[in-house]
């Protein structure tokens, strides 16, 4: 028996050298044994016979497969590889035959090695250990199945050139400092830090990206076998996520409103009549006269002028805005400024005749701050809205529309007494007082604040859709 001593588990050069000599001498595979390191010290075995004159040949492709397969942890791999190269001398195309049993085994080894390399590329998790001269340093602990640590070093160097890193495995370690790649001895898990600030965010991400409605743990296990879990910080979350998945999905289904047909009615907060006032106006004029005469309105920052609602007393649709603006204040009419013009266009697109609708504001006077010569619109406070709520409700009772459209948050607050999110509640016909319907949408001035035409166009179309929906709720 000829005994070949290889320097290490990854001594592929040593194997090549020996294989070349053995082939030259025509030694049959059965006469050779390959061992690692000191195992053969006490038993030298037979010497390799002198070379013959036939030069051994190995195809490049075969050699590639062999080099990969030799990183496998199977102790028989060196003998197998020699057997194949020996056979290749008489069957030069052996490596092209996938059905050959030796080749099949070799390829299986190579495949397993490639998979392990791939998993190491994937499952190494770096932890940051410091920063020096603008270069960050990272460390990782990994346990490969085969002898691949050195083989993956280039990959990590090419990927992480701009940082310093060290990967420790039980058998070897590899390190990069921006200049050179170094291979060193192996180590232990306790050699690397067990924490990293970003790791908790990674876990957050892992948990959030998982869709509980699609639980498929088998598929996960096939690609991420449990043997790798111990060094993957996110793997600790798997049991919990799996356990809760079904309940989470059912909760999503259950939480959706079951009938789904009618939008929920919004409970409207009652309005408070101011002292000395009583409702039941028999027309809009007496109502506005009374409002004008009332002496208790919030005056601070407000224009004195009152801007009344506008439209027929028997209108079937009522539109409620926020408050008059500068131009409305001067004209004494609601919705005549830029927002009003936009609303007019939306009316036209939704085929609503403004002359047949009743248009008004939640707050009846212009609130502003003076900047030089300009009067800048200022948002009405909840108290301001609260003051006019009762009056708005009286106005509604006079007109008695079948559909009311709240344009923007102030109108919603005025009509319901509540702060509701526009986006959540818009575009649906909500049961309102009596048999009337309420539709919530944005205030046209919101569109004017959008930065470009494309955005305005989208929102305009949505507004038109909302108005059309409101109109569709009118009894034919």
């Amino acid at each position: 028996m000829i005994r070949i001593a290889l320097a290490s588990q990854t001594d592929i050069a040593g194997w090549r050298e020996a294989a070349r000599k053995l082939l030259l001498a025509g030694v049959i595979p059965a006469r050779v044994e390959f061992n690692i390191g000191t195992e053969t010290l006490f038993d030298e075995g037979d010497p390799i016979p002198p070379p013959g004159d036939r030069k051994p040949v190995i195809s490049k492709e075969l050699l590639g497969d062999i080099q990969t397969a030799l990183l496998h942890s199977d102790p028989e791999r060196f003998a197998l590889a020699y057997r194949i190269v020996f056979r290749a001398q008489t069957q030069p195309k052996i490596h092209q035959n996938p059905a050959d049993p030796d080749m099949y085994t070799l390829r299986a080894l190579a495949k397993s090695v490639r998979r392990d390399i791939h998993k190491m590329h994937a499952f190494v998790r770096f932890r940051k250990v410091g920063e020096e001269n603008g270069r960050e340093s990272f460390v990782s602990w990994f346990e490969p199945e085969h002898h691949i640590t050195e083989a993956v070093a280039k990959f990590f160097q090419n990927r992480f050139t701009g940082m310093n890193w060290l990967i420790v495995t039980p058998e070897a370690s590899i390190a990069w400092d921006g200049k050179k790649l170094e291979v060193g001895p192996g180590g232990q898990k306790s050699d690397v830090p067990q924490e990293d600030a970003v790791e908790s965010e990674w876990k957050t991400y892992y948990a959030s990206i998982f869709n509980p409605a699609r639980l498929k743990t088998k598929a996960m296990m096939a690609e991420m076998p449990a043997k790798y879990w111990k060094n993957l910080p996110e793997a600790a979350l798997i049991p919990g996520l799996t356990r809760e998945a079904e309940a989470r999905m059912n909760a999503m289904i259950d939480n959706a409103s079951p009938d789904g047909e009618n939008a929920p009615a919004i409970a409207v907060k009652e309005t408070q009549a101011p002292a000395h006032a009583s409702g039941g106006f028999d027309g809009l004029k007496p109502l506005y006269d009374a409002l004008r005469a009332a002496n208790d309105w919030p005056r601070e920052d407000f224009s004195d002028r009152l801007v009344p609602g506008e439209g027929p007393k028997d209108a079937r649709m009522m539109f409620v805005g926020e408050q008059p603006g500068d131009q409305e204040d001067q004209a004494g009419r609601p919705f005549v400024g830029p927002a009003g013009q936009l609303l007019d266009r939306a009316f036209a697109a939704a085929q609503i005749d403004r002359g047949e609708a009743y248009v008004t504001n939640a707050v009846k006077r212009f609130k502003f701050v003076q900047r030089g010569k300009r009067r800048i619109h200022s948002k009405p406070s909840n108290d301001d809205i609260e003051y006019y709520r009762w009056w708005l409700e009286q106005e509604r009772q006079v007109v008695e529309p079948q559909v009311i459209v709240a344009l923007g948050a102030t109108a919603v607050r005025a009509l319901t007494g509540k702060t509701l999110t526009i986006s959540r509640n818009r575009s649906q016909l909500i049961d309102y007082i009596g048999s009337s319907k309420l539709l919530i949408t944005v205030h046209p001035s919101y569109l004017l604040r959008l930065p470009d035409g494309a955005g305005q166009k989208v929102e305009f179309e949505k507004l038109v859709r909302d108005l059309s929906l409101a109109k569709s709720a009118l009894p034919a």
Partner: protein
Amino acid sequence: MAQLDRSQKLEILADAAKYDASCASSGSIKRGSSKTGGIGSTTGMGICHSYAPDGRCISLLKILLTNYCMFDCHYCINRSSSGVRRAAFTVDEVVDLTLDFYKRNYIEGLFLSSGIIRSPDYTMELLVQVAKKLRIEHKFGGYIHLKTIPEADPDLLADAGLYADRLSINIELPSDAAIEEFAPEKSGPLIRKTMADLSGRITEAKVERRKSRKAPLFAPGGHSTQMIVGADASDDAAILQTSSKLYTGVGLKRVYYSAFSPIPDASKRLPLAAPPLMREHRLYQADWMLRFYGFSVSEILGGAQGGHLDLEVDPKLAWALMNRDQFPVDLNRAPREMLLRVPGLGTKGVGAILRARRFGRLRLADVERLCRSTKKMRAWIIAADWHPGRWLDGANLRSKMVRPARQMELFAA
């Protein structure tokens, strides 16, 4: 509301992105950081760095820039009328998070998508800014996939292609009518036009690159789209016909199918059912047949019932059962195209058989070795020592082929 920190935003904006099926980080050029001294490489293959319990690979940091959206697509959790919690990252936050994750080897790169805020252009510009900052300022060499917004200015999409490896435009629904109904702000023709424009640019850039290595890259990984399965009434036929048109017409690299899954605070127009995972699976199989096995849509749909693929058997087997006269196929003689039509035989197996049969006639045992298993294909093949006999004529062939009905791993632990 109190300011959300990066972690809280991440929770919301990753959650919002989990309904997008595309995740692949493959198909781009090879790139490394050795020369730039930066961070990041692409191998052309893509690496899955982890797997979620839903079996899907995690290779990219898949997040939304924001889940605020001015659009109101019914199937989407981010639609303007949904009541989900909202959050928005800044450009820098996304850049930093990508780098932080990448440096720890959690990911291959970034897949960034976004709800539409303020305007399509404004949003698209932010997406481009993220990619540009990563590439130019941080010399980031990892994968970048941007979901583009068809309604945005074409020049912005052109910019996106300079920095991204892949672009995608989600069509979501197979017919223009369905798009109009479920995504009122979107337009089928515009989506297809944008896809066609992208295709043109991608091809153009490839031609330029062939002439000069210095010509700029443009979305070298191609572009893709996603269709939601089961949210509307479209059948499999409509879906596959649309896919086929997208593959041939606008040069799409991939169509992803995403079984509609129940979403929190769902729009009332959507089904409240468990996701049709098996249907999704069948569509992927059929898609594969389109792209790699040389089948036409009409062949695949030959055995469909009411426009739907058979859920019991895979579409290739369904086709074989309908076309028994073309079997058995002699593995030692048949041309590649026919081998590809054998149930249970994939592209890899076919390749191995073609190579191996140059060395001698293959026996069943050889095939077993080459393809791991011959169980599924035995009835359909002839090997040197094997003939299925009258097996194919049996009336109960189909029932023999159907595996006992099993719940699609929905809750298999």
